Structure formats: structure tokens, C-alpha cells
């Protein structure tokens, strides 16, 4: 399409421009404001010492574990939701999406009622039989983060699976490729963009998780005080460190989002 061609829909009314600009300002101003507040000279110092660096290290480790869990369990779930027909499938799908829309603290309370040592359905058993306590532990942080991140991965992968044209898998079948091999050599390769997008979103969500973490895993320095919790607490006592930490989180998210650009739309690179 040449630059001179005009397409229906390519002409933008003025009010759309205004709306778009306002939306952009609304989103960008807080980010710009944050950048302005960061005391650049001390940034590295703030985040490489004390509670801030502990929080960063903990966040990194737990969010990666949580993302792996989301991937390992989310992929099969997405498969079933996308490919297997059964009664109540759409209801199940809605329930799986629940942690996405649930207020995080509510999620934390829900996690307590399942995995808490004192009142939990399963947590009590775990403690009595194996002496395992998930709350107040890094494992608890991973659980809280995986809880909120999993639906994002499932959603992305399920939509990816649904959009794969069956003719590729069919043709592979006619070429003698069995179901398992088909999955690895054809389906997974075709699914890759959605899979990567799903992993990226899941990881970002896990990294930023606060409400469920603080409710379920508590706030123990070095053990369960992740970066978002640390920022919240530092804001009162050491605002410089809080801004510096916020900037680090922001930078990480920007890198991920920029790396993922266009893949949200499902376009192949």
C-alpha cells in the first residue's frame, strides 16, 4: 500500500486524536513523574545494599519459580480448555480466570484458607503430616505469585492454541507424525509467540504481586519481603531507596514489554 493510498478507517476524526492523546498523558505522566523523582546519583547504592537488595534478589528468584510453575501447569490446562470439549468448559474457564480479577488481598485470604497452617483445608494436613509450613516462607511467596500469574499464561496460551489452524497438524499427521511428536515439532512451534507472550505477562505479574503476597506469605525481611512490599515500606522511611527500587522494577517491565512489542497482536516477527 503506497503512502498516497487512503484506506477506509485510516482517516482519524479529531476527537479520536484528543482521546488518544489524553489517554497517553494519563498513562505516561506517572512514569515521567517517577523518573523525575529518582535521585540518579544514588540509585545504584540504594538498590545494592540493605533491605532493597534483599528484596530485589528475593523478587527475582520467586518470580522466576512462580513463572516456571505457571508454565508447567498452565500449558496442560490451556490445552484442555482449548482442545477438549466437555460439559461446563466455559464455566471452568471463567473460574480459572478468577485470580486475574480477584482483588489480590482477597486472593491472599483465599490462599490462607486453603494452604494456611491454622485454618487451611490442605495446609493443616501438610503441617501435621510433613511439618511443612507454606506461609511466611519463600515457598509461600512463590505460591502467591504463581496463583495470580497462572491465569495470564493460560489465557495467552489458550487463545494461541485456538488460533492455530488445524490444517498444519492435520498435514503433519498425514506425513506420518504421531500425536506427541506433532505437539513438539508443529504445535509448540506455532504456539511459540503466544507462549512467550504468556510467559512474559505471567512473570511481570508475579514480579509486581503485593496483596496476596503480604497476606499469605507475610512480610519478613529477607524471606518474604519482595520488592513491591519493600517499596511500600521504604516510602515512609527512606523515600530515596523507594524511588530507586521502583525505578528498577519499572525498567525491568519496560524491557520486557519492549521486547514483546507487537507480539500482543499475534503478529509474527
Amino acid at each position, binding site marked *: 500500500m503506497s503512502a498516497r493510498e487512503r484506506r477506509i478507517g485510516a482517516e482519524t476524526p479529531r476527537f479520536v486524536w484528543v482521546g488518544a492523546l489524553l489517554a497517553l498523558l494519563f498513562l505516561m505522566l506517572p512514569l515521567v513523574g517517577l523518573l523525575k523523582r529518582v535521585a540518579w546519583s544514588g540509585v545504584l547504592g540504594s538498590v545494592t545494599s540493605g533491605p532493597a537488595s534483599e528484596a530485589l534478589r528475593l523478587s527475582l528468584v520467586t518470580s522466576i519459580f512462580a513463572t516456571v510453575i505457571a508454565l508447567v501447569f498452565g500449558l496442560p490446562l490451556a490445552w484442555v480448555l482449548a482442545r477438549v470439549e466437555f460439559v461446563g468448559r466455559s464455566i471452568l474457564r471463567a473460574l480459572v480466570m478468577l485470580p486475574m480479577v480477584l482483588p489480590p488481598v482477597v486472593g491472599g*485470604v483465599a490462599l*490462607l484458607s486453603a494452604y*494456611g*497452617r*491454622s*485454618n487451611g483445608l490442605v*495446609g493443616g494436613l501438610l503441617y501435621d503430616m510433613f511439618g511443612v*509450613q507454606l*506461609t*511466611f516462607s519463600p515457598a509461600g511467596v512463590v505460591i502467591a505469585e504463581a496463583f495470580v500469574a497462572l491465569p495470564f499464561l493460560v489465557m495467552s496460551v489458550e487463545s494461541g492454541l485456538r488460533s492455530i489452524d488445524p490444517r498444519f497438524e492435520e498435514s503433519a499427521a498425514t506425513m506420518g507424525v504421531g500425536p506427541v511428536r506433532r505437539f513438539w515439532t508443529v504445535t509448540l512451534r506455532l504456539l511459540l509467540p503466544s507462549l512467550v507472550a504468556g510467559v512474559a505477562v505471567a512473570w511481570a505479574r508475579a514480579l509486581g504481586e503485593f496483596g496476596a503476597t*503480604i*497476606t*499469605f506469605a*507475610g*512480610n*519478613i*525481611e*529477607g*524471606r*518474604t*519481603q519482595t520488592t513491591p512490599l519493600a517499596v*511500600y*515500606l521504604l*516510602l*515512609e*522511611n527512606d523515600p530515596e531507596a523507594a524511588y530507586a527500587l521502583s525505578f528498577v522494577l519499572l525498567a525491568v517491565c519496560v524491557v520486557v514489554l519492549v521486547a514483546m512489542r507487537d507480539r500482543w497482536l499475534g503478529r509474527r516477527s
Partner: protein
Amino acid sequence: MVLVSITQSSANVHAQSEKSTLKGDLTISAAASLTDSFTALVRQFRKDNKGIKIHLNSGSSSTLVAQIQSGAPSDILASADLLNIEKLVASGNVVVAPKVFARNTMAIAVKPGNPKSVRSVADLASLPFIALCGKTVPCGVYAASVLTRAGVSLSESKVTRGIDVKAALSAVANGDADAAIVYKTDVLAAQSAVVGIDIPAAQNVKAMYGIAPIRGSKNVSTAKAFIDFVLSEQGWQILKSFGFQRP
């Protein structure tokens, strides 16, 4: 006839003072441990002053101070310690001398039935997880004092820090913390959700609660009226019913 007119006029005066002329909106920043008592105080105050709308903003005293210092509109601060109000005096947000309106002490909150048989502050050292308030939150500072006075030191890796005293209490009431050091009034407010263990006076602290109007308030007279109410006998009776002590 003269008697009748005197009675009438005094009746008029009485009727006038009941009809309050105070109007407007009041925002009160109150420490988390004051949530229940201040809700009751506000309710009573509004009965006598129907023209006023009151918004109660709860949080840890240190958070509230930070909010006010960064410009959050608030008319009154009721803090769980005098240190935080002093911060506002130092930053110029409070220009009137703060008044102490109540006193509180700390207590240990444990799960119903006291399953871990906690009897003293010393017993806390043997528990796997304790809940305290954040290090710079008043109740966290008080708890640190209590621990020091009792000669008990806790490893930070066993302490989950709640953002205010309600969160610390909740870790015991709803979560897996075995004990928390909170205000005695919070133990009372939680009723059957937790069991309280007293801390002897020798180890305990006197938490002095202060109240002051915030500079820049748009409702100076209403704010003053509320503070006067809190400091009045009627206000004190309400605070006493929640477990506070006379300052």
C-alpha cells in the same frame, strides 16, 4: 409571670445550644488502633452535629504523617505516639500544641485456646513466627521497647511485619503467626478471634496518644469542636469503653 418568662428564656437558650450550627466536611487521620473507638466517637459527635460529614482515614501513624507531609488534605491527626505528631510540628503541618487524650499499653495476642502455651514475652522466642508492626510504626517501636525491657531478642527472619497494628493482629487471627505484640485495646476489639496475654508493667510501655489539628484545615472551628469532644468527659467515656486508659 416573671418566673414563667425566666423559664421560657432559659428553655430557649437550651434549645439553641442543641441545634448545632457546625457544618462541613471533616477528614480525621487516626491511627489504626483507634479505628473502633474513633468510629464510635465520630458517630456520637455526628448525633449532636448533624450538619457535619466526617471521613475517617485509618492507617499506621507513620503512614498518616507521611501522607500529611506530602499534602494529603486532613483536618486532624490522632496519633498512637507523640513522636509522630512532633514530626508534624517540626515540618510545620501542626502549629498548635498537641494534646494527649489517651494512654494504651501493649499485650500479646495469641490464637484462641493459646495452643502454644505462651505466658510471657520470653516465651515468644521459642515460637516459629511472630507478627509485629513495621519497625518505624509506633506499635512496632513500642514492641521493640517491650522486647528490650524483657531481655528478649528475636531473629528478624521469624518476624512478619504488618503495615499497621490491625495487619499484625490479623496475622494471628486469620493467618499462621503464633503470636503478635499489639495494643491491649486491639486484643479487646478482636474479641474471640484472639486471646490476650498481659505484659507486666515492668516490661510494658506507656503509649501516649496525641491529637492535633492540621494547619491549612478548611474547617478550623469544626476540627476544634471535635478535638474538644474527644477531650471531654463524654469522649473519655467512649475511649474507656474500648480499653484505653487515662493519660
